[in-house]
C-alpha cells in the first residue's frame, strides 16, 4: 500500500510540473546565459565600434559596419555560401538517411557500436583528414589512378581545387552530424505503422515519404541545422579543397577577424549571418506550427 505524504505533495500537479520543468531547464539556461549570451552582448557592442588604425577596437557607436555590408560583393558571398551549404546539407541527408535507417533497424545491441564506428574517423584531426582527401583527389591521386586502372578514364580529371571537391569535403565533414539525429528519430518509430502503410498499398518510396519522413521530422530538422550552419561558417575546407580560389562567409568572417583585424566588421558580419539564419528558422517553424494547427482543426 502506497504511503501518503501530503506534506511532500505540492498543492497542484500542474504547477509542480511547471516547477520541475524550470528546475530542469535553469542549469543549462544559466550556463548559456553566462558563457554565451553575455559574451554575445559584448560582441554585439563591438559590432558598433570601429577598427583602430592598428587593428584595435575603438569604442564608438556607428552603423558603418552594417552599412558596409550592403556592398553587392558581400551579397554574392552570402548567396554562394548558402548555395554550398544547402547542397552539402542535401548531400548529407541523401547519404545519411539510409545509413541512419539501417542502424535504426539493427538489433539494439549493435546500434551503439555502429554509432561509434561512424564517429571514430572524426576523432582524428580535421586538418590531416582534409590533407588525406587532397591526396585522394589530386591529379595523380588515389581516385584518378583507380579510375584509370578501371579504364573508366584516360587522362586524370581535375577534382581537387573545384567546387565539387569543396562540396565533397563539406558532406564528408558533416555527415555524422546528420546521421545521429536521424538515427535517434528513426529508432523509435513504431514498426506496425510501417506495416500498416505497406498494407495500404504504399510502395517503399511512399512509406518513406508519407510515414518515415514526417515521423522523423524532428530528427531531420535537427540534422539540417547541425549541418547547414557549420557549412555556412566553414573556411578551411574551401581553402584547402577549393584551392582558396573563392570565398564563403566563413572565409570572409575569419578574414575580417584574423587578417584585416577588423573585429567590428567581423562581428557585424556574424550578426547579420545569425539574423538571417534565425529569421529563416523562425519562418520555418512558424509555417510548421500553422500546418499542424490546420491538421488538428479547431
Amino acid at each position: 500500500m502506497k504511503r501518503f505524504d501530503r506534506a511532500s505533495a505540492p498543492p497542484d500537479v500542474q504547477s509542480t510540473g511547471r516547477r520541475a520543468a524550470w528546475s530542469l531547464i535553469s542549469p543549462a539556461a544559466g550556463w548559456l546565459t553566462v558563457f554565451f549570451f553575455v559574451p554575445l552582448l559584448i560582441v554585439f557592442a563591438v559590432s558598433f565600434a570601429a577598427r583602430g588604425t592598428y587593428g584595435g577596437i575603438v569604442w564608438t557607436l556607428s552603423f558603418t559596419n552594417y552599412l558596409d555590408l550592403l556592398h553587392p560583393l558581400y551579397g554574392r558571398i552570402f548567396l554562394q555560401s548558402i548555395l554550398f551549404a544547402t547542397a552539402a546539407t542535401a548531400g548529407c541527408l541523401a547519404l545519411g538517411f539510409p545509413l541512419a535507417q539501417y542502424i535504426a533497424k539493427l538489433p539494439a545491441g549493435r546500434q551503439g557500436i555502429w554509432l561509434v564506428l561512424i564517429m571514430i574517423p572524426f576523432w582524428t584531426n580535421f586538418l590531416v583528414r582534409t590533407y588525406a582527401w587532397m591526396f585522394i583527389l589530386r591529379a595523380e591521386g588515389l581516385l584518378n589512378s583507380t579510375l584509370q586502372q578501371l579504364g573508366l578514364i584516360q587522362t586524370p580529371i581535375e577534382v581537387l581545387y573545384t567546387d565539387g571537391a569543396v562540396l565533397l569535403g563539406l558532406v564528408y565533414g558533416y555527415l555524422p552530424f546528420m546521421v545521429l539525429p536521424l538515427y535517434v528519430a528513426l529508432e523509435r518509430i513504431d514498426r506496425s505503422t510501417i506495416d500498416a502503410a505497406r498494407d495500404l498499398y504504399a510502395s517503399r518510396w511512399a512509406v518513406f515519404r508519407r510515414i518515415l519522413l514526417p515521423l522523423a521530422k524532428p530528427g531531420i530538422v535537427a540534422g539540417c541545422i547541425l549541418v547547414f550552419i557549420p557549412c555556412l561558417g566553414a573556411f578551411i575546407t574551401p581553402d584547402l579543397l577549393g584551392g582558396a580560389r573563392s570565398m564563403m562567409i566563413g572565409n570572409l568572417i575569419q578574414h575580417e577577424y584574423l587578417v584585416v583585424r577588423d573585429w567590428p566588421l567581423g562581428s557585424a558580419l556574424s550578426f547579420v549571418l545569425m539574423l538571417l539564419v534565425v529569421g529563416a528558422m523562425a519562418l520555418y517553424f512558424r509555417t510548421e506550427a500553422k500546418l499542424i494547427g490546420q491538421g488538428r482543426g479547431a
Partner: protein
Amino acid sequence: MVSVGDASIETLSLVKRHGATLAVDRVSLSVRRGEFFSILGPSGAGKTSVLRMLAGFETPDEGDVLIEGRSMAGVPPNHRPVNLVFQSYALFPHLTVAENVAFGLEMRRIPRHEIAPRVRAALDMVQLQGKRDRLPAQLSGGEQQRVALARALINRPAVVLLDEPLSALDHQLRREMQVELKTIQEQVGLTFVCVTHHQEEALTMSDRIAVMNGGRVLQVGRPGEIYETPASPFVARFIGLSNELTGIVRSDGGGSQWLDTDQLDLPIRVQTDRRWTGRERGLLILRPERLHVAGAPDPAFENRVPARVQQVLYAGSDIRYVVRLNDRVHWHVKALNSETAKPPAPGELLYVCWRASEGVLLPA
C-alpha cells in the same frame, strides 16, 4: 475442403516459429469467395500470426498462402489484394482521422474528388464524421479502433483481414458494426477473415468458423456444427460453457445407451449414433441452456439429478445458476430472465433434468 477454384484465400500447412515458440503449426485453411470466415481461439493461439502471414508481414517458415489462386510467396504487402485491421490499430500518429482513412486510396492514385466522398461515407459508417480532423492521440480507444476499421474497409479489397475488429466497442456499437460488416460483405461481396475470441460474435456473424489453439486448427465448420457437434473437448469447452460427465458407455438389452459416470452414482441415459463397444470411456457435455431446473423431478425428461443451488448470477437477459450435484460436481444452468419463472434462491434444493437426446458424447 473446397477446391482452389472458388477459394478466395487458401493456406497450405503454414508454419511460423517465434524463436522457441511454435506460434502457427501446419495451418491449412480455405476461405471461399464472399465468405465471412472467423478464426476463433484463446489468447496466444496464433490467430494474429496467421493474419500477419496472410497480409504478408511475416514470411511463413513453411507452407504457402494462395490468394485468388495465386501463390503469395515473395509478394510484398502492398501488392496483395488484402487489407488488415490491426489488433493494435497502428494508426498513423501524424495524420488526422480523415487523412488516415484516405491513405489507402491516395496510395492507389485515386483522384482527389473521388476520395473525399468515399472518406465521408466511411467516416459516417463508423460514426466519426465529427472527429475527422482529430489526431489519433485525441481519440478514445473505441474511436481509434473504428478509424482502423474505416481505413481498411474504404479500400474495398478482395479480402479484409480483421484482427479483433470490435474488441474495444460496446455491445450496441458492436452490433451496429457487425451489421455494417455483414452488409458490406453481402453487397460488395467482400471476403472477410476475422480473428476474434468473442464466441458469440463468431457464432452470429460467421459463415464458417475455424477454432484454433496452440497454433493448430482444431475444427472448421458452420457455427451450428461447431456448437452442436464439437470435434473435441477443447472446442466444446471453448465455444461455450459446458457441464461435463465422464464414464463408461454401455448399451442395455432394450437398445438404449447408458453412461456409468465417475461422478454420479445413478447412471445417465444417453443417445448417440456412434457404436460403442461397451468398454470405452466417454465424455458427456451438456450445455447450461439445455438443462431444466424444477422443484420436483419432471417425468418429461429421462435424466433427473437432485442438486442444490449454490450461486445465482444475474446477467440481464438471462440468469445463471451454479448448482452442486455433489462435492465434486458443480454445474452451470442458464435460464431466460423472465418474471414468470421465479429464480430459485441459493441453498434451495431442486432437480436438474434433461433429455437423453441432449448433449454431446465424445470418446474420452
